[in-house]
C-alpha cells in the first residue's frame, strides 16, 4: 500500500520540480494542471481503496511501525486528499488567467504544487514529527506564494503570517518533544496507547500545547489574527487555495489528535474546545460584519466557520463528528470558490472594496448565479451543502441539550446571512459607482474559460452535495465512526495488538 499512499505526495512534488525547471516557459502552467489532474486520479484510487479495504497504512523505508515513518489513510485522510486534489485542479486552471508571467518566472507553479504536496503530506502521515515537517513545507511554500508579487501590503501580511505561524510551529515542536519525552514514540497510532501509562496531568498540559499549536493553524479564537492580516493580499488563486485548504489542515490535525491521542480528559480538553468554538464562531462573524472589502469579509468568515468544525470536535458525539467532517469538506469547496469568484469580480469590476464596485448582477448574471450558490451555501440555506453542515451540528447540540451553543451556532448563521446579503446587495445589485459595466465579455475567451470552468465546477459540486446529501452524510458517518473508535486505524498501522 506504500506507493498508493506516497503517490499523492509524489505527484505534486514531481509536478513542482517539473514546473520549477520550466518556470520560464508557458508550458509550466499546463504541467501544473496535468499534475493536479493526475493527483485527482490518484486520490480517487486512494479513496476507492480505503472505501473498499478500510484503513490502509504503509511504512516508509520499510521500517516497521513505530520505528520508521508510517503513512496511513482512513476515510478522513482519503477524503481530505481527494478534496485537496479537487481544489488543486480548480485553482490550477484558474491560475491560467490569474497568474502573470512574472509570478510564473519566480516559481509560482512550483510553490503552488509544493503547497499541495505539503497539505497532502499532512493528511496522510501517521507520524507526529512528520506532520511537523509537512507543516513546515506548507508554511514556507505558502509564505512564498503570499509574498510573490512583492507589493508592500503583501510583504506586511506575509511577515505577520510567517511570524505567528512560526511561533505556532515552535509550540508544535515543543509539544512533540514533550510527548516523545513521556511516551518515547512519535507514531500516532502507537501514541494512542502509549499515552495511557504516562502521567495524565502532564499529558493534559501537552494536549493544551498541541491545541494551541494547531489552533493557530486552524485560526481559532484568540489565535487567528494572522489570517485576516494576510489573506486579502496575495493573488486570488493563492487566496483561494489558502482559504480552502490551509486552515483545514489545522482542523484536521485537531480532529485527528483529539480523537486518537488526547481523549484521556475530554471533560477538560473538549470543554476548552467548546468555548473556543463558540468564541471563534462569534468573533469571526462579527469581524466580518465590520468589514467592507469582499476578501476581508470572506477571510473573517473562514474564522467563523472554523468555529463550527471545532464545535463538532468539542461535542464529541457521533453526530457531532459527522457534522464536523461534513462541514470540513463542504467548507473547502465553498470557501475556495468564493475567493475565486471574488477574483473575477475584481478583474471585471475593478476591485473588491464593496463601496467601489457594483452592477455585477445586471452585467454578469452568470457570475451572479455562480456566486449565489456558494454564498448561500455558506450562509446555510437549503438545499445547498452548508445547510446540511449546519443542520447536523445544530442537531448534535440539541441532542445533548447544549442549548446555549446551539443558540450561538444559529445566531452566527444569521449574521453569516447578513454578510452574504451585504456582498450581494453591494457588489451585485447596486449599480457600479463609476458607471462601469462589469461584463464578463471584458475578458478574453481564454480568460473567461479559465475563470469560469473551475468556479462552475465547484458550484456544481456544492449543489450536488446539497441536493444529494445522503451519500456524503453516510460517508461522514463512516468516517466519524473510524475517528471515534480508532481500533482499525491502530491495527492497520501497528498490526494486531495482543
Amino acid at each position, binding site marked *: 500500500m506504500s506507493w498508493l499512499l506516497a503517490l499523492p505526495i509524489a505527484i505534486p512534488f514531481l509536478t513542482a520540480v517539473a514546473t520549477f525547471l520550466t518556470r520560464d516557459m508557458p508550458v509550466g502552467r499546463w504541467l501544473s494542471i496535468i499534475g493536479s489532474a493526475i493527483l485527482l486520479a490518484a486520490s480517487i484510487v486512494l479513496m476507492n481503496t480505503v472505501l473498499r479495504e478500510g484503513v490502509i497504512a504503509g511504512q516508509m523505508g520499510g521500517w516497521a511501525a513505530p520505528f520508521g515513518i508510517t503513512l496511513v489513510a482512513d476515510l478522513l485522510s482519503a477524503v481530505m486528499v481527494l478534496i485537496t486534489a479537487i481544489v488543486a485542479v480548480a485553482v490550477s486552471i484558474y491560475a491560467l488567467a490569474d497568474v502573470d508571467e512574472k509570478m510564473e518566472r519566480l516559481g509560482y507553479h512550483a510553490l503552488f504544487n509544493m503547497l499541495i504536496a505539503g497539505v497532502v503530506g499532512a493528511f496522510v502521515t501517521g507520524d507526529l514529527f512528520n506532520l511537523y515537517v509537512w507543516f513546515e513545507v506548507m508554511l514556507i511554500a505558502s509564505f512564498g506564494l503570499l509574498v510573490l508579487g512583492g507589493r508592500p501590503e503583501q510583504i506586511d501580511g506575509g511577515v505577520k503570517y510567517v511570524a505567528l505561524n512560526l511561533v505556532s510551529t515552535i509550540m508544535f515542536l515543543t509539544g512533540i518533544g514533550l510527548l516523545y519525552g513521556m511516551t518515547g514514540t512519535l507514531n500516532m497510532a502507537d501514541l494512542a496507547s502509549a499515552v495511557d501509562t504516562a502521567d495524565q496531568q502532564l499529558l493534559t498540559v501537552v494536549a493544551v500545547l498541541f491545541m*494551541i499549536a494547531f489552533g493557530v493553524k486552524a485560526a481559532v479564537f484568540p489565535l487567528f489574527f494572522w489570517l485576516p492580516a494576510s489573506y486579502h493580499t496575495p493573488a486570488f488563486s493563492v487566496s483561494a487555495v489558502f482559504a480552502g485548504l490551509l486552515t483545514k489542515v489545522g482542523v484536521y490535525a485537531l480532529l485527528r489528535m483529539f480523537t486518537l491521542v488526547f481523549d484521556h480528559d475530554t471533560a477538560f480538553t473538549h470543554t476548552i474546545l467548546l468555548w473556543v468554538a463558540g468564541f471563534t464562531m462569534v468573533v469571526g462573524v462579527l469581524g466580518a460584519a465590520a468589514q467592507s472589502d469582499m476578501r476581508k469579509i470572506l477571510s473573517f468568515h473562514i474564522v467563523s466557520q472554523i468555529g463550527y468544525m471545532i464545535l463538532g470536535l468539542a461535542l464529541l458525539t457521533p453526530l457531532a463528528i459527522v457534522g464536523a467532517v461534513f462541514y470540513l469538506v463542504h467548507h473547502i469547496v465553498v470557501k475556495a470558490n468564493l475567493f475565486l469568484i471574488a477574483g473575477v469580480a475584481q478583474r471585471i469590476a475593478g476591485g473588491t472594496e464593496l463601496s467601489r464596485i457594483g452592477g455585477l448582477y445586471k452585467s454578469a448574471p452568470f457570475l451572479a448565479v455562480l456566486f449565489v450558490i456558494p454564498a448561500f451555501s455558506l450562509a446555510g*440555506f437549503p438545499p445547498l451543502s452548508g445547510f446540511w453542515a449546519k443542520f447536523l451540528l445544530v442537531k448534535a447540540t440539541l441532542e445533548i441539550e447544549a442549548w446555549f451553543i446551539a443558540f450561538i451556532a444559529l445566531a452566527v448563521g444569521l449574521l453569516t446571512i447578513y454578510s452574504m446579503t451585504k456582498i450581494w446587495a453591494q457588489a451585485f445589485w447596486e449599480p457600479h459607482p463609476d458607471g462601469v459595466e462589469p461584463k464578463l465579455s471584458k475578458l478574453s475567451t481564454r480568460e473567461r474559460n479559465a475563470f469560469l470552468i473551475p468556479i462552475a465546477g465547484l458550484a456544481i459540486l456544492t449543489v450536488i452535495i446539497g441536493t444529494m446529501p445522503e451519500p456524503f452524510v453516510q460517508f461522514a458517518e463512516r468516517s466519524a465512526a473510524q475517528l471515534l473508535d480508532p481500533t482499525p486505524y491502530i491495527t492497520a498501522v501497528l498490526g494486531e495488538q495482543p
Partner: protein
Amino acid sequence: MSHEGTLLIIIALLPFVGALVPGVMIRAGRTACAWFTAVPTALALIMLLILAPDVMRGEVIQAELQWMPQLGLSASFFLDGLGLLFACMITGVGLLIILYARFYLSGDDPMGQFYTYLLLFQGAMLGIVLSDNILLLLIFWELTSLSSFLLIGYWKHLPEGRQGAKMALTVTGAGGLAMIAGMLILGNIVGSYNLTDILQAGDQIKASEWYLPALILILLGVFTKSAQFPFHFWLPHAMAAPTPVSAYLHSATMVKAGVFLMARMWPALAGTDAWFYIVATTGLITMVMGALIALFKDDLKALLAFSTVSHLGLLTMLLGFGTQAAAVAAVFHIINHLTFKAALFMTAGIIDHEAHTRDIKRLGGLRHLMPITFLIGTVAALSMAGIPLFNGFLSKEMMLEEASHTKWLDSYYVVPVLATFGALLSVAYSFRFISHVFLGPVRDDYPSNPHDPPAGMWLAPALLCTLVIVIGVAPFLADGIVRAAASAVTGAELDPHLKIWHGVTPALWMSIIAVLGGLVLLLLHRPLDKAWIATPRPEAKAIFDALIMSVVALMRRITDATHNGAISRYLAIFTVASVALGWIAYSGSGLSAPTRELLPVPIVIAVGWVMLVVATVSVVVMHHHRFRALVLIGIIGLSISAGFVYLSAPDLALTQISVETVTIMLLLLALHFLPKVTPAESSGAMRFRDGIIALAAGGGVGALAYAFLMRDIETISDYHIANSYEGGGGTNVVNVILVDFRGYDTFGEIIVLGIAGLVIYALMHALLDGPAARRLKNTDYTQDRSRDRHPLMMVVVTRVLMPIAVVVGIYIFLRGHNQPGGGFVAGLVIAIALLMQYMASGFAWTQERKKIEYHTMIGLGVVIAALTGVGSWLAGRPFLTSAYTYVHLPPIEEFELATAMLFDLGVFLTVLGAVMLMLYSLSRIARSAGETVNEAAMDYDPGEHVEDAKGGT
C-alpha cells in the same frame, strides 16, 4: 406508491423543474416566457383538482421518497384539506399573477429572471404546504425566504428594494433559524420528524418539559414570516418589490406561511394557556396596530401592507383562541382575505402603473378616468371593510362572534373591545381607499394621464372580485373546502355551515359599531392625520437599522482595536493564552511522583548555563542595536553547540555550529542593508507587560521540561540503536535515522530548505522592483565602509582554505554514515568556504567562477533524493527503502556504498544550493544599492604596483 401519491410528488416538483425554463427562454419573447411559467402552474393546479374530490371526502393522500433516513428526513408529502386549500391558492393566484405580471413589467425588466424566481418561490411554497416531514418543511421554508429575497430586490436599481430585501431576509432568516431549533426539539420530543406522527402526539408534546421552548422557537419563525408584532416592520419595506410580487408573496401566500404552520401544528401545539396567551395576544396587538398605522399611510401599497399585517394578526388571533369555531373562522378568512387583498394589490399596481404615483394625497377622482379599476377596487375594498354581501363580511362576523366570548386573563372585555376597534379601523382605511383614490373631483395634476389598463391587467383582479361577490352572496359554495380544511386543522370532523344571516348576535352589533365608527373616523381623517404626523412614535425600521448599525460600529471598534496590525500584540495574546491554558491544565489534580533523582550540577554546566542566560538576557536588552544582538545570538548558538558536545551529541554539535556560522554570516550581510538600529516601538509600560508575559512563558516551558526530565520513559531509540548497523548499514545512528529510519522527514526538510532559497530569491526580486529599491539606492554606504574592502591577507587565507574546506566537506560527507557528519553538514561546510570567498573577493569575482546554476543545484538535490526513494519502489520495496554494499577499491580501505548515501547527496546539493541562492539574492541587493563591483580578486592589485615599480626604475 399509489397513483395519487405519484401525482402529488409531480405537483411538488413541477415548479422547480419549470423554473429552469423561463430564465433560459427569455430570447423567445416575453409572452412565451409567461406561457412557460403558466403551463407548469396550470398543470399543478389541474392535478390538484383531480385529487381534490378524494381529499374533500376526507382522504389523505400520501407519498414518500427516502432521502436521508438516518437523519429522520424523508421527502414525504401529504395532501389533506388544509394542504389542498393552500396549494390551490398558491397555484390559482399564481396563474393570475403570471398573467398580471406579463402586462405589468416593462420591457426593461428582465422578465425571464422574474418568472424563474416566481416559479422557484411557488415550488418552495407548495413544498411547505405539502410536506409531511418537518425537516423537509424547514427546507422549503428557508427557500421561500431566499426566493422572496431575490424577488423583493428584483428592481435592483432601487435602494429601497435592496434594503427591503436585506431586511426581509434577515428577519425571516432569523425566524427560520429559530424554527429549525424548535422543530428539532419537537422531533426529539416525539421521536419522529414526520408530521403525521407529530400531529397525533399532541398530548405527549404538551406534557413535555420542552414544550414551551419548542413552542416559542417555532412561533418565532411563524411570527417573523407572517409579520406579527414586533417583527411586522419588514413587510411594508418589502413592498418595494414589483406589485405582482407584493400581491403574490406579501399578501396571498408567503406571509400566510406562518399562519399555515400555526394551523398545521394546531393539533400538536394549540390548546394550552401558553399558546393562547402568546398567539392570541400577539395576533390581537398586531391586528389593532396594523390597522391603526394603515389608516395614516399615504402610499397605497403601504396602506395595503399594514392592512395585510392587520389581517394576518386577525388570523393569528383566531388560531390562538384554540377553539374549533375559531379555526373554522380562520380558514374561511384565509380564503376571503386572499381574494380581496390580491385584487386590491393589483388595483394599486394598476393605479401606480397608469397614474405614475401611489400617493393617496396626489390621487382622487379616478372613478371617471378609470371606471373598470374603480369597480374592481371598490368591490375588493368593501369586502375588506366587512360590508354585507361581500365575503369579508362573513368571516369578520365569525371573528367578532368568537372574540365576543373570549376571556383574556379575567376580563371579558379586552378581546371584544379591541377586536371591534380593529374592525372599526379596518372599515376606516378601506373607505379611505375608495373615497380618497376614486371619489372626489378629477384633478389636473396627476403625474401621468390615468386611464384603464389593457384587459390583461384588469382581468386577474376582476376574476378575484367575482369570487368576492359569489362567496359573499352564496357562502355555502365554500362549505366543502372550508369543511375539509378546518377538519384538517383541528383534527376533528367538523361540519360548518356558512351563512349570511346569523340573527341579531353580539357580533352584528359589534359590526355595526365598527362600520359607523369607521365612517366617523374617515370624516375626521384630516385632523387626525395632522395629529398622527405630529405624534412621535418609534419607527421599527429606524430601530432595526440603528440596531444593525450599532452592532456593526461596535464590531468595527473591537476589530480595529484588536487587529491593530502589531505583531507584538498578536504574540502577546498567543503567549498569554498558552500560559493561561497550560497553567490551568498543569494545576489540576496533581502530578505523579518523579521517578528520577536530581543530579549534582557540574561546574562546566553551571558556567555554560550562566553564559547562555546572560547572552539571552543581553539580546533582549540590546536588541535595538542590531549588530550587537547578532553577535549575542552567535554566542547563544555556540553555547548550545557546546552543550551538545558535553552531552555526547557530536552530530548535533557539528550541525549546530555549521548552521550557526552560515546563518550569522548571511544575517550579517543582510544587516548591511538595514538601518543599524531598531526604533523603540513599545512604551515602558508595554515592555514591562511583555516582560512579565515572556517570563511566565519561559518559566512555564522550564517547569514542563523539569517535570518531564524527572520521569523515566521507554523510547523507540533503543530499536534504532540496535538496528542501525544491521538494517541501515551505518554505525552513526543519528545519520542512519536522518537518511534511513526517518529519511522521509529529511526529504521534507530539504524541500523546505530548497523552497526557502526560492522564496528568498523571489522576495528579493520583488523588493528590487518596489519602493524598497528606491530607498536602497538613496542610501549612502560610503561613510562606514572600510577603505580596503578585500584585504590581501583575507583573500590569501580563504584561497588556501578553499581546497581544504572542500576536502573536509567530502570527508564529512563520506564518513557520515558511520561517524559524525553527513550530507547536511558537508553542504554547510562547503557553503561556508564559498561564503568566505565572497567575503574576501566580492560576489562578482566569485560568481564568475561558478559553473552551476543555484536553482538547478537545488532542483537536482531534491530530485536525487526523490529518485533514491522512487528507486526502492521500482525494486518493489516501500518508498525510501535503503540498500547497501561494501566496496574495496585499492589503495583506499574498504568503504561502504549505501543508497542512503545517494539520498545524502541530494541533501548535500540542496543545502549548498539554497545557501548560495540566498547569498546570490543578497548580492543582488548590494548591486542594486549601487555598490561598486570589483572584477579582480582584490581592490588593491599588487601586480599593478610591481609593474609601476619596474617602470619607475
